[in-house]
Each structure stands twice: as C-alpha cells, then as structure tokens.
C-alpha cells in the first residue's frame, strides 16, 4: 500500500529539469532590474547624489548597514546561471549547447564584476560549480585575481560564440533574432572595455592591454543605440514588469522620490535638455507661480530633516520616469553611450585610439544618451554642445571631468555602475552631506558584506576583512579604487 507514495510526494507545482532559456530570461531580467529601484536609488544613488535619500534609509545618511539582500540576490543569479551549465551538460562542444553556455558565461561575468565592484574581495573561484558540487564555505578571492580571471574567461567565452549554433531565441531579452550571437560578441567586447578601464589606476598594464584588445576590434564594440543591452518593461502589466523606477513610484515611500541637489543643480547649470524630462517642478514653486526645479540635500542631519517641507523639492518627473502612461522605458544593462564614454577616456590615454578622437567619442556618447527614452532628444542642442561639451581649450583632467560628468548624468537609475565609476575617477567632485553617520561625514566607498555570509562563512570572511584597510566598513576601499 505504499506504491503510490512516490507519485504523491512529487511536488505538484515545480519540476526537476527545465529548458535553460527560462533560467536565462529570469537572470537577465533580475540582473538588469536590480540596478535600479527604490533602495539602490536611495543608497548608492544617494551616495553619488542622484537621489536625496531620507531618514528611512539610514544608509543614505552614511549610517552603516550590511547589504544582505544584494549579496544574496546576486549569488542566486549565479546559481541559476550555473544551473544552465548543468542542464546543458554534455553539450559543451555541440551546436545545441556551446554558444548558449558562452552567452550565459558572458552575462555571468557582468554579474561578478558588479558584485566585486561593490564589495571588493568576494567568494569567486571556489564557488559551487552547480547543485551537484556545493561548497558552503568558499574562500574570498582578491579583487585583483577576480579581474584577471574575468578578463581571461571573457576571451574564452567569446571564442565559443558560433553564429551557426542555437541561441536563446525570444527568451533573450537583450538580443533576439538572427544576429543575436554577434550582438553578444559585441556585448562581450564592450564589457571587456569596461573591465579594462576599471583597472586604470590599480593595474595600468593589464588595464591598457585589455582596453587595447577591445579597442582593437572596433566592429565588435557597440556602434549605435540598437546595440544596447536592455530589457523591455511594461507599464500596464504587473508591477514587477514595470521599469524599476516606476515600481518605486507605485509601491515605494513618498519620502524617497526626491532628487539630490547636486544632480538638479548640475542639470540646471548646464541648461540640460533632459532636466524637464527627468525632474518634476516643485509643488510650492508651481503654486507660487514661479515654476522651478529644486534638489534636496543628501545625508541631512536630524535638525535639517525635521524642517524640510517636501513640496519645496523636486521628485523625478511624474510624466516620464514616474508615469504609467508614458511609453515604457527599457531597463539598460550596457549602452552605446557608456561605450562611447569609455572610448573617449581610452583615447585621452592613447589606449587604442588617438587622443584627438576623444572629443568625437565623447559627443557621440552624449548624443546617444540624449536619444534614449525617456528623453528621446535626437540631436544635441547647439548651445549645449558649445557650452558644456566642447573640449576646446581644456586640459586632460578637465576633459575627463566632462566625460565623467556626462556619464554620471547618463547613469541616472543605474546605481551600481554610477557608484563604481564615480569612485574610480572621483568625478564629478561631490560634497558630502552634513550628517556624520558612521563615516564621519565622508561618502562611503563600498558596501558592507552580508551578515549571513559573515556568520556562516566566518573564517573566510575574517580573512577578507583582514585585507581591508578599514575593516568591513563604508570607508575601506576596494582594490581598484585608488582615487
């Protein structure tokens, strides 16, 4: 009478093997959406002074707190990517598996880069291969060694992309259609450019070699906005399908919708055509008949916060980012504009391009950035071009400042990348808020490891923390952060 037990104990709502495309779709969506939304905006986004933050997110006021969710979320994305390997096991040299595995690996490298950029040393090389070989206490690798490995792996994965192989088809949010595999080749090479430049001050030799290798295949770098890696969003479906910024508006706190003074002031100073499409006029200025955009200070003290009248400040635009009726804005993972800004920076260094090419790359990047939704501005206004884009008469430091400032504006809503790029070059220069927090008033330089990791992988955690200059705190710097 126990013969039906096995059938009875088979889970009714799940399965034991799956088409790996479903895993890939989920990781692409989650990985891309994770960069934006209420909490990343008001943590890293407020450190780089895009968003004002508030008392309800103590991290925005430089009060230390561990990033448990981000840590767990990214490792679980790695898990699903590695399950793809398990599901495609035996097909590594086969048209039905080879390229799919390479694509999964390329995206995995993007996730690893984000994670190490945020935390520094992380468990990497000893992490479980898949569910059949689990290591519950992997050692933390140094960021230096992780970068070297990611760059090498990226080359290997690119070599395994074969145009004739099967791809993920419509499950691939970034690139579907007949040219998908070549688009991944471009994504990989553009990612390589990003990996290389991140090491600019930490390991100039490897940085230069990597950048020059990527620049050496210009056809395999993004060449227009159609190459962008983006996940479509849907404003009229479930909240989870909406752009993370819209999700923030729909489900988040009304206190966390305000923009930072630094961003609003910069856009106003530049007379930036994106300003009215990015920010909302303040309620009280409109009521008083003097429409204006005003940003709120970041990391305010209790005394300052208690006096804030929020109607005096600008939220993100209620007719673009915070609108359900505006055409859905895709969530971006890597854009042509970013690639242009990296190329411009590489050119300034003479890495793979002449220094004279820098301005062209830079302006192409700005033009591409303006074109993207929700701005949809198809040409650079001449006044803007001459006033804030021209390199004429500038030294290299000033040119780099212009590049990084434009990248900073472009990366609005892409908080991990914005925070990494700001730390790397220290540009644009930002003045910390007045709350002392845990950092004695300095802008944090990294995120704090997960509590669960520290408790459950303690000796490896301790070894990694021992390598940090200020322990597991906001003020320790990751390896490549030399500015």
């Amino acid at each position, binding site marked *: *009478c*126990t013969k*039906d*037990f096995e059938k*009875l*104990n*088979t*889970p*009714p*709502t*799940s399965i034991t093997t*799956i*088409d790996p495309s*479903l*895993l890939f*779709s*989920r990781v692409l969506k989650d990985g891309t959406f994770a960069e934006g939304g209420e909490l990343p905006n008001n943590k890293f986004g407020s450190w780089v002074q895009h968003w004002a933050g508030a*008392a*309800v997110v*103590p991290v925005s006021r430089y*009060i*230390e*707190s*561990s990033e448990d969710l981000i*840590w767990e979320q990214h*490792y*679980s994305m790695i*898990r*699903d990517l590695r399950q793809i390997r398990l599901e495609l096991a035996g097909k590594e040299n086969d048209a039905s598996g080879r390229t799919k595995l390479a694509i999964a690996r390329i995206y995995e490298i993007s996730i690893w880069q984000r994670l190490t950029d945020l935390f520094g040393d992380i*468990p990497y090389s000893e*992490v*479980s291969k898949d*569910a059949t070989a*689990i290591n*519950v*206490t*992997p050692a933390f690798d140094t960021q230096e060694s992780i970068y070297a490995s990611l760059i090498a792996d990226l080359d290997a994965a690119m070599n395994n992309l074969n145009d004739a192989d099967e791809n993920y088809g*419509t499950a691939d*949010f970034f690139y579907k259609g007949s040219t998908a595999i070549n688009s991944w080749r471009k994504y990989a090479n553009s990612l390589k450019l990003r990996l290389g430049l991140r090491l600019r001050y930490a390991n100039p030799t490897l940085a230069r070699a990597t950048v020059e290798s990527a620049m050496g295949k210009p056809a395999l770098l993004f060449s227009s906005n159609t190459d962008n890696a983006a996940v*479509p969003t849907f404003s009229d479906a*479930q909240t*989870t*399908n909406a752009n993370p910024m819209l999700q923030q508006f729909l*489900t988040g*706190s*009304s*206190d966390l*919708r305000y923009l930072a003074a630094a961003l609003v002031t910069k856009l106003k100073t530049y007379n930036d055509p994106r300003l009215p499409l990015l920010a909302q006029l303040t309620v009280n200025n409109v009521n008083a008949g003097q429409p204006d955009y005003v940003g709120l200070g970041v990391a305010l003290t*209790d005394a300052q916060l*208690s*006096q804030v*009248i*929020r*109607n005096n400040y600008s939220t993100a635009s209620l007719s673009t980012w915070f609108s359900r009726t505006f055409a859905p804005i895709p969530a971006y993972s890597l854009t042509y504009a970013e690639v242009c800004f990296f190329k411009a920076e590489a050119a300034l260094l003479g890495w793979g391009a002449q220094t004279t090419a820098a301005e062209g790359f830079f302006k192409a990047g700005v033009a591409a950035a303006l074109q993207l939704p929700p701005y949809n501005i198809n040409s650079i206004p001449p006044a803007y071009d001459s006033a804030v884009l021209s390199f004429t008469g500038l030294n290299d430091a000033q040119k780099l400042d212009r590049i990084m400032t434009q990248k900073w504006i472009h990366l609005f809503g892409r908080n991990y990348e914005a925070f990494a790029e700001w730390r790397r070059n220290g540009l644009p220069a930002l003045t910390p808020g007045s709350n002392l927090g*845990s950092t004695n008033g300095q802008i944090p330089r990294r995120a704090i490891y*997960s*509590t669960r*990791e520290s408790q*459950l*992988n303690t000796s490896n955690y301790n070894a990694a923390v021992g390598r940090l200059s200020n322990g597991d705190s906001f003020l320790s710097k990751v390896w490549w952060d030399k500015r």
Partner: protein
Amino acid sequence: KALAQTGATATGVVKDAQGVQLPGVSVRIENKTTKFSVGTSTNNQGMFSIGGIPAGNNYTITFTSIGYKPKVMEGYTISLTDKISIAVVLEENAAALGEVVVTALGIKRNKRALGYSMAELKGNELTQGAEANVANTLSGKVSGVQVSRAASGSGGSSKVIIRGNNSLIGNSQPLYVVDGVPIDNQNIGSASSTGGTDYGDGISNINPDDIQTISVLKGPNAAALYGQRGSNGVILITTKSGAAGKGMNIQFNTDFSLGNALVSPDFQNEYAQGLNGNFTHLRRADGTIITMAQAIAGNIQGTPKMSAGRDRLTRSSWGPKMEGQAYEDQWGNLLSLTPQPDTYTAFFQTEKQFTNNISVEGGNEKVNYRLSYANTYINGYVPTNVINRNNFNLRTQAKITDKFNLDAKLNYIMQDGTNRPTLSDASDNPAYLLISQPRSIPMDIIEQYKWTANDVAKQLGYTNIFAGLEKTYATNSSTANPYWTIRETRNTDRRDRVIGLLRLSYDFAPWLKLTATGGTDFYTDQRLRYRAVNTYQSLNRKGDMSETVIRVREDNYDALLNSNFKLENGLGFTLNVGGSHLSRYLRQTGNSGSQFIVPDLYVINNTLTNSYIFGLTESEINSVYSSGQVSYKDYLFLDLSARNDWSSTLSKENNSFFYPSVSASFIASEALKFKSNILSYLKLRGSWAQAGSSGNPYQLTGTYSLSQFTHGGVPLGSFTTIIPDKNLTNELTTSIEFGADLEFWSGRAGLSFTAYQASTKDQILDVPISPSSLFTVMRINAGEIRNRGIELSLNATPIKTESGFTWKTTFNYNKNANKVMSLYPGVETFLLGSDRGINVVAEVGKPFGQLIGTQFAWLKDENGNRLIDPNTGLPLTTTSRVQETIGNAQPDWLGGFSNSFSYKGLTLNALIDIRQGGMIFSQSNREEIIYGTTKKTLAGRDGSYLATGVVAVKNADGSWSGTGVANTKTVKAQDYWNVVASDKEVMVSEEMLNDGSYIAMRELSLRYQLPARFLPGKKIRNASVGVYGRNLFYFQRKTDGFSPESASFNTSNSSIGIESTSLPMLRNIGFNLSIGL
C-alpha cells in the same frame, strides 16, 4: 440455545457521576441460596450483558471497579422471562487515584495502571471561564503545559507546548484527538512579522460545551500509539454522548461576557506632536508656511502648524506641552492643544460574547443519542470584527446486537468571520497605528477619514493627495487610518467543516473484540479581502482584493483487535494489534488583483492586474502497531508498545521506521498492604518511549519553479534555494520518565511527581548556509534538542465539613530545562525567526529561543555601567551594529494554583496562572520610544534627564573607557531616547527587552446550583447560575504595556519572544445560566 431459553438476561450500562461510561467494571450476579454465580465486565461503552440466569429470589448484583466504591444491588427476584435492564452509577472512591482515563487509541484505562503521567480535566472544569478556544482552558491547569495565545483578538489561535519545544522547524504543538480520531489543527495563513491575519486554528472550532473530558498525554511515552504526530504529546478530547435509560433530557446553557483591555500601552498625555518641545512649522498671517527655525530666527508671528511625515522628525510626540494653545494640525484644522487620553477607548470597543448551547440527549440500553447546537457570537474588541460560529453535533451509540456496537458522530461547524484584525507591523493593524499616533490628535479628527478639498488646500507634509483619499496622520506607506480600515476595507472568511466518525466494534468473546474506525475531518475556507478604491497605501491608490478557497481534508482509518484475559493466579494480559492509514490534503486556489476599474465592485475581473494563488500538498502515512499489558494482582503493570510507520514524505529506502515504548507501574501501597492512614497510596512508575517523525512533503528533490508572472509573455524560471537531500530519514524523539503518585489521609491530600527527559534527534532541518554557496539552506537530518524537567502536582482537601463545606486546592509546577545539544557540524545557530532588529535562534549549548539583538549595544565598563559621553551627557553605543545575546524566551518555570470552595450548591473557583522568567523583545516599546508616546518618555523633557552611567574618557585609539565617576550631566529626554531608538533598525536592542514573568488571576468563577426544592415541579431537572471573570488582573507583571502571555503575532517558532504592537489581551466578565429539562 436450550440454555438461553432457560435463563433470564440482565443487561445494563455503568457510568460514573459525570455520565462517562465505565469500561472494565466487574459485574457479578450471585444467588447465595442456589450458589449461582456468573461474572462479566463492561465493554468500552460501559455495557454488560449476562444471560442464562435461572429463576429465583434474592439475587445480588455487585459492581466493582478500581477507583470506585463498590455497588451492591440486592434482593432481585428473577423469573425466566425477565429481561432486566439496569443503569448503574458508580461513585468515585475519593481515596484512590484510580479513576478511569482515556488513553491512546481511545482505550479507557484505570489511571493506576499507567506507567506514565497524564492529566485529565472534566468538562465542568473547562467551561467555567467560557473560553471560546478550548486550548486556552488548559492554561495553568496542567503541569508541564504552556499555553500562549496569539495576540490576535477573538477567534484567534493558541499555542500549546507540552514539556518544552522540541522541534526546530515544525511546530512543537501536540496532536488533538477527538473521540479517538485526530483532527486538523493547522493555522492556515497565520500572521507574520509584517502583517497578516489570524484566522484561528483547528481546535478553536470545537464547542467547549460538547466536551466531556480532556486528557493530556505528555510526551511520546503516552503517545507512542498515535504515531509521529504524537511525539509532542496528545490532547485527547472525549465529547459527550447520550445517557441510556433516563428518557429525554434537554440542557440549555447561555453565557454572556464583556471584554476589555487587560493591559494597554501606558500613554503619556502631556506633550503634543512636534520636536524639541516645540511645533515644527508656522503658518504666517499671509497663509504661507515657514519652518519654526525660520520663525524663531526672524521673530515671525503666526499660528503653529503641524506637519505630516513618515519619521520621528515630523510625526512624533516630542513637541510642546499641551496647554490649550491654538494651533493648526497637518490637515489645516484650527484646534486648541489639549491632551487626548482616550485614543484607545475611543477607537476600540467593549467585546461582547454570546454563547448559547442546547443539547438533547436520551436513550435506552440499546441506543443512545445526543444532539447539540451551539452558537458563539463575538462582537469583537476591534469594531466591525464579528465572529459567528455554529456547531451542530450529533452523536449516537447503538448496540445493534449483543456483540455488535456502533458509535457514530457528525459534527458540522459553520463559522463566519468578519474583519478579523491585521496584526504586527502592518498599516491596517489599529494597535500599530495608535501606538505611535501623536498624542495630541483628537480621535474625532481621525474619524473624518477621507480627505476633503479643504484639507488638501491646507495640509502640510503630504504629496499626491486628493479629496476622497484615505486620510492618514503620517505619510508612511505603513500608516493607515483605522476608521478607514474598519469601514472601507473588509475581510471575511467562512469555514464549513465536518468532523465525522463511524466506529464499529464486535465482541467475538468477552475477551476478544475488533474495533474499526473511520474518521474524517474536512473543511473549506472561503476568504475574501478587499481594500476600497482610494486606500492610501494600495497600488496606485486604486484598492485591491484577494479571494481564496482552501480545502483541507484529513482522513484516518484504523482497525484494532483487542483481547484481554485474567488468570486465576492474578496475572492479567491485554493485547492490542492494529493498523491505520492517514491521508492529508490541502489545496488552495484563488486570485488576487489590484487597482479596481470601477469602484464598489469587489470581483476579480474588476481589477486591472491580477494573479493567481495556488498551492497543493498531499501526504499519507500507513502504520501497524501493537500494544500489550501484563498485570499482576492490580498492583503491578507492564506496558509495551511498538509501531511501524510508512510515510510518503520520505524516499522508498527510508520511508519505513519503527519505534517502541515500554512502561511499568507498581502500586506499593496495594502490594505491601499499607496499613498507615498517613500514606494511604503509593505508586511508582517509569517509562521509556520513542516516536519517529517524517517531516513535510516534497522535501527530497531540488526543483525548478516558474515565476508567477511572465515578463511580456516570456516565462521566467529559477532553481530552488534549498539544497535537497533525497536520503533524508525520519526524526526520532526518545523520552524517559519516572514518577510517583502519593496519597495521604485516605485521599485528603495527594502528590504526583514526574521527572522526564526527552530528546529529539536527526531533525529534518533547513540549515542556513552562506549565500556564497549559491543556496539559502541545506536540508539535512541533524541536530538534537533535549528537554529535561520535573513536574509536580499537589492537591488537597484541607476542609470538608459535615455541613457540606469543602475546600479543595491544587498546585502544579513544571520546570523545564531546554537545551540545543547539537545542530550540524560547523553550524552553531539556527535562525527561528527575525523581525526588525531581533533574531530568535536555537544556539548549540543554549536553550531554544535565544534572543539576539542585531542592532547597537551600550558601551559599558567592566562593572556593567554605561559609559556616558562627557561632552553630550548621552550614553555611548557601539558605532556599528553588533550581534548581542540579550536574553532567552523560555520561561524558568510554570505553575498553576487552583482553589475551589463549595457549600451546598454554591461553588467558588479561583485559578492563578504563573510563569516565571522568559524574556520578550517588544517592538511596541521601540515605537513608543521613537515617537515619545508613553509615560516613560516624560521624565526630563525640559533637559533634566539624567542618563545613568559613568563618565567616559576617550583613549588615544578612539575607544572609550570609564572613569568610575557617576554622570551628572543632564540632557533633554528626547535626545536620550533618540540614542535608545531613532528608527526601526537603529536602536539599542537590550532596551526593548521585557521580563515575561507573570502571576495572573486567570479565572474566578462563582456558580450556584439551585436546590431541587426551588425548581418548579418536575419539569426542571437542574438549574444553575454563575458569574465569572477571566484574565482578571495580575499579581505580578513586568512587561511594559502588553500582556506577556499574549504577545506574539502567531503560534509558530518564528515569533517566540517577540511582541509586535499586539492587540491587547482582554479581561472578560461573564454571566451564565444553565437549565436542564
């Protein structure tokens, strides 16, 4: 046949004074003249039959049973055609502990034969306090039993733990068995730390008036025969059945009670909304609003103005003293600033509970019946919360032939709930809102719960508001208006439940009987909740709804062959052999949707976006078991049992597991023929038992699941976060106990003592692993939890006079030492639950339920004094979060002290319920500190607050040391409490800790049984009236603003030791009337 025709037949039924049929009573019919003598014993229904009695005079019928006074009926004259039927009531022999109790598998046994401790409560001991949930009636009455109730108001669930927690992931609650058949006691969809509603548990559906007795079988010793679910102990409930031979009896009971908060937050009524002793803003004469800082700096005049916000900087009660001054609130109302001491009483209401019960019973020696109907109607403490429960119960027992018996029961429960409150940290929990609401806001302002155009124009601090929207005092996504919640949102639930059983038994011979039982318990829950359009914190402010149907079914079938025989030399044997099948099923389907398209239409197709709800779990267990007893001369007993289970939740290789038990008892007083009147009875007992357990379904394989929503039609999948183990095996609880029962002065005083140890090994655990393993938990067999303890029960009848005055007293005590012996190599702690700054863990070497603060800690010197910053006068805390053990949730000991005084028809009962030790972390205390709403935040608001501690000095390396000099620098109370707690995740954890000790006046009841001479004629058989109070007051309580025994938001392990803006426990005063016709 020839014999039968030549003899008369005597049949009958034997019961005790409470009407319980007594099995195993020796019945002997004798004729001294003819030397005729035939004996038999009553069956499980208390019935007997003796045939072939020759005609004659002067027959004597004798009834004897251990624990009862023998009954001799003399002088019967029998003729050959007689069919004598006799109904006998045996009186308890006060001198013996030898009462008959219901034990595992419904077998009634003499208590003296048991080798383990068990407790029994009679129906009238249970209904004195008219608790709607039967589980609550156990509180304080049985040693080793801890009852705590969810802080969820009427109709909520309760947690019963017998001899300590023994399971890390399962619940440690006992199995409930009603009339021999297990019932479902799930609490489906209970509240979590972030809200939710308690829809009640399974046991709360049972009508207390139908209960005859409750037996508590503690631990697996007593419960080995109920299998794995009995490893936490078993609560056996026997319901009433009809009485034979009394004609038709009608009993009517009515009960009415009123309930109000026993403990509510200790609100302050001196300081208003604001900060730093002042208002935050000012409206100038020209209508513009400026900050108070600007007003002071510029000496600008105007009307002080409140602002809404979402944190303590705007919505707290650290403002000006309330002295009747004019001000404008956040909505633009011009008011005078006066204290509002009655926020709680203005919103909540007196709970009214009506219980009406009618039963009809009767029968003859062949068949009896009992039909009852009960209605419980509760108009709850939270306005609009109504629980209406109807119980229909039909029980019939029939003797189809002399040998073939039938017992059938059908219990139909129809329960409707309306607006059960939301609990814990959720916007629609009224207690959550009121605890932090500024102390200056009048409730009549809050009661105007929709924004008007005028409010919108004059408000300060809100964004995106419009007329008609729910009006809240703050802007948090977690604030709601409680009046909106009770009037514009709704949740209703309906349960239709059938509990039925059919039991057939056949007596092959007086010593051999076969019983087959089929029992079913199935119910359907239909739940609907909606929040109307314009609910402040619904998606897009468009409202939302969900509707679910949950079907639960549990079927139990068992067959038991029972034989017993006695040998002339005093040896007796009993052997039971049986098999059972259990199947469980739960299926949940439903829809949830948000953003209504048109208002006031609460159907799923009126929502803009919607999604499904689905769940299904099924499992089965097959078992065979055997138990036997050897007895010698009614003073030496040896019991053995063995059981093998096959569970569907384990793999084919591991799904079969075996567990035995053995127990023995020795009645020394009987064996050694004690002559002493001081120690009149002495029994020694001991037992050893095991019980296996096989965990939940679907835990063996790692699986992929699909996300609920596609992304633009593209499906999304992910792998499980649990590392599965297909080789899981059963858990095993092993328990051992020893004890003694003593009686003194022929039963005037008694003492029962038990020492026990139980350990549960190889628990099926989800052990947390580092996130970098790529998984969350690893499912393994690991860990051992040990409970060791002693139980003591004392009872005495200090006074018993000839005039009829009796005083009975009982004291019980249980000290349980719980210890987590091991978890998994390398794993020292196991997270049971976590809620905003507090983790509840099982830690190796420590008792279950360690409370770990995950926030900040005071800096202290070596003597434990806090270090005070000499510059600020404020205590110093760690600069980063620390993990700090701040206490343990387990009580040190539990006790109960009960006294009963009776004189003629008047009975006064008093029950004192005691718990000592066990800490509770209070989220309410944190809210009260952040927002300055309670009295403890009053002292020193003017700057005279002196933080206790010693002055600190800063060392060269930046650390601090104490100087030993007491701090004298005073500060503003607000600044001090702001260090203690400034936000939900920024606090000094230890300051939220409460000692959960209490001594409570649990029950006090006075009952008067009207003497027969007052009853009109013969129409009214009996009548009684009573008054009672439940949860009347505390002799001792150490918690700040809440009841320690009703603090948690659910009954699972995840909320042990956590209080979270709980609804107050109620003090009930009631009246009841009972009439028998």
